[in-house]
């Protein structure tokens, strides 16, 4: 068999990669849990975001890590716009329709990206792309490590938001009891002067 350090490194590589996938899945679960929207376009949005990072890196040469916060705001706006202007009106509140709308959205976005960027593989090369951190006999890719740390931090922040803050509690309430929220809104509206 293979020596222990090799197996250990392979396992750690797997965990580091998995953390990034978990972060992607987190976004999808949040959207479904709260809004009951199965967002088929999640992957397409992710691809759009990655192309945005690539564009920012290849044309003006901005470091990908520096683009995280501004792009997060931009895509927050895009997500809000998609819900408000496309998914909401098109689906008339029916879960089945929402599925179809997001599916259609994913097809449109993917093919638009294909038309603009063609099907060549693009990659981003920064100084740390292939640098490693030495942990004893193990060599861990820096880029992967940063991605892992980022995923853990974002997850922790999200958990804090959902469990401790008022907005978080409200989101969880909506997710648990849709009808109750509607009643509450009605009561508030009627009781206001």
């Amino acid at each position, binding site marked *: 068999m*293979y020596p222990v350090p*090799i197996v250990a490194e392979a396992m750690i590589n797997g965990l580091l990669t998995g953390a990034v996938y978990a972060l992607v899945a987190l976004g999808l679960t949040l959207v479904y849990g709260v809004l009951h929207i199965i967002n088929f376009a999640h992957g397409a949005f992710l691809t759009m975001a990655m192309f945005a990072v690539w564009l920012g890196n290849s044309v003006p040469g901005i470091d990908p890590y520096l683009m995280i916060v501004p792009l997060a705001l931009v895509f927050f706006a895009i997500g809000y716009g998609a819900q408000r202007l496309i998914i909401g009106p098109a689906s008339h509140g029916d879960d089945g329709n929402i599925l179809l709308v997001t599916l259609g959205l994913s097809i449109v976005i993917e093919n638009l990206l294909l038309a603009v960027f063609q099907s060549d593989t693009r990659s981003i090369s920064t100084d740390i792309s292939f640098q490693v951190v030495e942990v004893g006999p193990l060599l861990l890719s820096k880029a992967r490590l940063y991605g892992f740390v980022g995923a853990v931090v974002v997850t922790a922040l999200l958990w804090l938001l959902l469990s401790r803050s008022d907005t978080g509690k409200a989101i969880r309430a909506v997710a648990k009891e849709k009808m109750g929220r509607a009643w509450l809104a009605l009561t508030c509206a009627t009781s206001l002067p």
Partner: protein
Amino acid sequence: MAKRKPKPKPKSKCSKRRPKTKRRNDKTRIDITRRKALRTGTAAAAATLAAPSVLWGAKPDPVKLGILQPVTGALAQDGQFGRKSAEMAIADINVAGGIKSMDGAKIEMVFGDARSNPEAGVQEVETMQSEDVAAIVGGFTSPICLAASQVAARYDLAYMVDVGVSDSITSRGLANTFRFAPGFSICTKIVIENLVKLNEAAGNPARTIALVHEDGLFGTGLSDLMEKQLPEFGFEIVERIAVPTPSRDLSNVALRLRSLNPDLIIPSTCYGETVLLARTMQQQRVRPMAVYAVLNGAASNRRFVDEFPEAAEGIMDVNHWYDPLNEKNAGLIERSEADGRIYAFNTPLNYSNVMLVADAMERAGSADRAGLIAASTFKDHLMTYGPTKFEGGQNTGAAPVSTQMQEVEIKVVRPEEFANAKAKFPANT
């Protein structure tokens, strides 16, 4: 009862005559001018016919040459190289006076896009046949070349394969199919020969080998051959790793290589995977004695050595290449790079192919193409080949060369007659 149409009044003889008289007058007028025209015209024609053809200004019909390349789809980049180089060759031939033995007939390109699949290639051959091309050059990849040349054989249409290495292309006994470049068997013979010589010259330091190949027919076939033949020369194959195209992450492959620590790594993968492997190996500090690539997509590619010089340094390849000692290549390199294209082997190879076909047409005017190509001893090419001699459609003078990336340049290291540098073996000590 429905009203019937009134019977047409018969035209009176008088009315018939009147228009006729008028016409007769016009006719006479026309007759006079026509006669004059005929007279002067015949005189002029007679004068022209009597004059030599050069003064006549009549141009001979252009000779149509079919160029088949996959300019869209997965193989688009290579297809573009092939098309542009064929265009350059045709332009150069026409500027130099065309096919002189056919009254300076110019060559006209009939281009077909093979769309990176054999079915489209076959369609284009049919179109070219209907446009009456004299011969077809191209195909690029073995599956397209196989299908297209088979269809061309039905019409006795000469087909020059540009790159496709598969042995079956020239072993089907088709009288119309030719390949100027080396095929699989010539390539593998040179691969093993050169490796053994390099190792011997360094005192036989390398013994263990890991094969990393693309998981399609080409890579698997090549590795099967290596696995069978290399042990006969004292090498030990410690591992065979198949890599899919495309691959996004080769860190586990690099890990395996690190744990096995072979003396040599032989990758026969496509461009993207080779670059990723080289960079991952650099990251994981996997340093074999040498990376000895075979017909690799990146190991003798300018783009790789320009973008990642540290990862590329020292990598060797056995591949098609142009003769660095032939000055004509320098001119073509300039023209390609001015157009924004790197000079890969496809360019001098397709250029040479078109020149060869033109040379065949030059030697006898307009006769049997296939026969002429088969008898060709064309010397004016740009490649690292021995004397041109076609046997069963394959140019036996063709051979690949060993290259090595040294100091951000791709140098030819073997054979000596085309070498412009000495091999550094082992590349990493």
